[in-house]
């Protein structure tokens, strides 16, 4: 029997634990070299999302918009979309424009596919960038659906021909940090593998300062790389939430026979083990020494630090796969996730949580799907957690309950450096573990009458 918390069905949403669909799509498009995200809708949506993303990454995030006004909302947004594309071409000279729809254009029923077809015919004499489209009505789905949808669109619309085997491995890592993406590349190198990361915003959303303003930041997955994903020796796709869904990896497998390995997001020991084993099988190589050493250090740290955090009770919330990963890590190190919650809900989440915690916990955590912070707080308040694990949005709740908050995932906008937070791999687990232990120690020091300098 799976112990899922009863979900009181509120009509209204208070402090949502999710973001809207096109936001995820713009992030994915930002990870393409020479790419400009474009929202087909009214100006406000694009501006809000820019602001939101900037507060986490602290990088320019230009999102173009077809800036629909009242007339367009009535007569259709086609002309504005075309005009907008032309203007983006003139100003940014992009190689790829990623067009995502918004609630508005989905509701008025703009046929973006048709409009783009017309656009290509009308302006066929110009050197047109590749235009990729994804349908992202926010009234069905969350930002994660938008993210995965855009990744699928990139793979389906740009990778259309079978190419010669490249020996590369496609990695669809899901919505992780810029540092996570860099670390994935490093892991690939340790196995002598060239990876095609889709998307790769490690540079475009965490780059250097410039002499000249870069309309499009350097970095990202190149068109060439995307086009040759069909020749890869395999694909890796992170995220238990993707199982059974139509994804980029599934599409490449179906169309080009590139074997797709779906793995849980490699956060924590066991999930990272699974990744390393897969890579090892794929390459026929043993796990590289450097990585084995990292695993060794992680285990050593877990032993050194286990007592400080033993028995703490945690509430974990956020995007499904990030939550699953963090829950997994907590269960492994002896912190008890007592409530695990996400604003998304595709089914199967509770089972995945329980599977992840199997054999590690005396009691399974309660699981909530499709909830907002009001729902989470209603239950978590009773469970009296010591610790919250999730994005910045839990800050006020943590404060109210006098609990610690470990910030992970997105958005982190009340701390510095969220884009450089490493979650993945043994090294990510080690960093997160250090932070958790230090949070516990700091609390002890701060609440102790005498204070102590040695631990």
């Amino acid at each position, binding site marked *: 029997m799976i112990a899922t918390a009863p979900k009181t069905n*509120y*009509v*209204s*949403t*208070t*402090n*949502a634990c*999710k*973001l*809207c669909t*096109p936001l995820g799509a713009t992030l994915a498009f930002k990870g393409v070299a020479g790419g400009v995200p474009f929202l087909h809708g*009214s*100006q*406000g*949506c694009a*501006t*809000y*999302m*820019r*602001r*939101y993303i*900037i*507060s986490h990454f*602290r*990088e*320019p*995030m*230009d999102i*173009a*918009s*077809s*800036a*629909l*006004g*009242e007339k367009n*909302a009535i007569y259709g947004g086609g002309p504005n*979309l075309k*005009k*907008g*594309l*032309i*203007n983006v071409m003139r*100003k*940014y*000279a992009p190689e790829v424009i990623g067009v995502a729809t918004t*609630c*508005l254009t989905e*509701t008025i029923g703009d046929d973006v596919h048709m409009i783009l077809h017309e656009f290509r015919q009308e302006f066929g004499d110009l050197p047109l960038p590749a235009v990729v489209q994804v349908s992202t*009505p*926010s*009234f*069905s789905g*969350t930002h994660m659906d938008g993210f995965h949808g855009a990744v699928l669109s990139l793979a389906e619309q740009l990778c259309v021909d079978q190419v010669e085997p490249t020996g590369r491995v496609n990695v669809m890592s899901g919505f992780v940090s810029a540092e996570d993406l860099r670390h994935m590349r490093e892991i690939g190198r340790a196995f002598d593998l060239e990876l095609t990361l889709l998307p790769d915003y490690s540079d475009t959303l965490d780059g250097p*300062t*410039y*002499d*000249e*303003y870069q*309309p499009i930041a350097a970095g990202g997955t190149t068109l060439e790389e995307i086009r040759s994903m069909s020749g890869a020796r395999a694909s890796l796709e992170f995220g238990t939430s993707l199982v059974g869904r139509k994804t980029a990896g599934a599409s490449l497998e179906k169309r080009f026979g590139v074997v797709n390995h779906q793995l849980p997001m490699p956060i924590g020991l066991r999930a990272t083990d699974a990744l390393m084993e897969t890579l090892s099988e794929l390459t026929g190589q043993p796990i590289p020494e450097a990585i084995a050493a990292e695993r060794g250090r992680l285990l050593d740290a877990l032993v050194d630090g286990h007592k400080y955090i033993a028995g703490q009770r945690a509430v974990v919330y956020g995007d499904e796969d990030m939550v699953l990963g963090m829950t997994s890590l907590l269960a492994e190190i002896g912190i008890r996730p007592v409530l695990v919650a996400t604003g998304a809900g595709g089914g199967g989440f509770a089972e995945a949580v329980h599977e992840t915690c199997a054999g590690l916990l005396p009691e399974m955590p309660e699981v909530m799907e499709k909830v907002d912070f009001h729902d989470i707080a209603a239950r978590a308040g009773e469970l009296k957690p010591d610790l919250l694990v999730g994005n910045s*949005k839990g800050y006020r709740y943590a404060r109210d309950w006098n609990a610690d908050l470990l910030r992970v995932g997105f958005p982190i906008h009340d701390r510095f450096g969220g884009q450089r937070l490493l979650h993945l791999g043994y090294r990510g687990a080690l960093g997160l573990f250090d932070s958790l232990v230090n949070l516990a120690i700091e609390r002890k020091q701060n609440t102790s009458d005498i204070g102590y300098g040695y631990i």
Partner: protein
Amino acid sequence: MKNELLEERKGQIHTVGESPFDMACNRESLAGAVSQRACVFCGSRVVLYPIADALHLVHGPIGCAVYTWDIRGALSSGPELHRLSFSTDLQERDVIFGGETKLEAALVELIERHQPKAAFVYSTCIVGLIGDDLEAVCRKVEERFGIPVMPVQSEGFKGSKREGYLAACKAMNRLVGTADTTGISPLSVNIFGDFNLAGEIWIIRKYLERMGVEVVANVTGDGRVADVQRAHGAALNLVQCSGATLDLAKMMEEEHGVPHVRVSYLGIEDMADSLYKVAEFFKDIDPDIERRTSELVREELEALMPKLAGLRKDLEGKRAAIYVGGAFKAFSLIKAFRHLGMKVVLVGSQTGTREDYRELATITDPGTVIIDDANPLELSKYIKEKDVDVFVGGVKERPIAFKLGVGFCDHNHERKIALEGFIGMYNFALEIHASAMSPVWNFMPRRRGRAEGTVDSGARGPEGKGCPPCAATAGGAS
């Protein structure tokens, strides 16, 4: 790629002294131009958000609500209902069959849960399309609970922030005049258009208190429903900011005969002028108020000026750029920079009017670039051409400045430091100093290039020579 201006945008950029003033503005944003602007809904949300004991329910899909969750720094001295993000989170089914039932149920649920003093219901793009009758739903709920429930017609696509201000003022005007005004002092004002960011309203209220003036309602910062309901009992409305609440002031003038004056609490002159305006207004009823006011100003300035002088020594001659939401704020900032010995070389806004820009053209030096509804490429182009040291703007402008290795001062609704009042001028100077004087700029590629002579130092030529040779190309995407 050359960072050329889009042809359609040229009318919205003016260089002072280069040609007779002519400026296009108040236009719809250009498709594909990556405007820094938001939407009607945003404008309404901005104005009404600070009413802290009202329920603010966003009727629409989740994004509109979630992106406006507690992003503003409007502080409350009491209830904090405004800091929660409420939404009907419309789903596909609601979009097809209409969202009225859900809206009503959501309102009932939230009112029962939070017992607010009033409720505002914001309409978003989608709601405008599916045609939900907000008015009817609000009326029904209002009758059931006996609290005011006001629809805010703020469908995003119907214009820019400006139209949102009007929608908000209309909604708020329904509240004004619905409560008893007995006991209000003849020396009384309402504070409009100040958002109590970092507690700024509390600074202003203290000044007014010292002058013997009662504040009836501070509508847009630390606001309360009951105060707004009796706001018509005040003798005068103080309206800050270029547009947000001017409409409400006009409505109150027409309907209740309450006059208004426009004020600004930013910078030394504007702060002092504003207080003098109030004193002037009340001097017939209280002849001593002018004396009290000048005493206040003198005391404040005596404390402030020596501190400013210390900072000015370092800042003298540095160049500033300003990009703000409303143009009114820009006027005050230009003067504030003069006190620091700095020169404003670029100034723009999202929603300025023709008159605003004409005024800017009059008070700035030749060569200053004035810009309406700018985008990142234009801003970066001029930051570089004008060789700016410090940029004043909001969150979306910050990375533009930082990427180019230019100092930055957050002067938007997220700020955590009070920049208003005399103390605010000092805080502002400290902020500017902290950023402009940081040693980090020495390591930035652009500055290094300038030191080595490989980068054109642009406008840093002889004073008053107008626009420099526009050698800058902010391209690079190839």
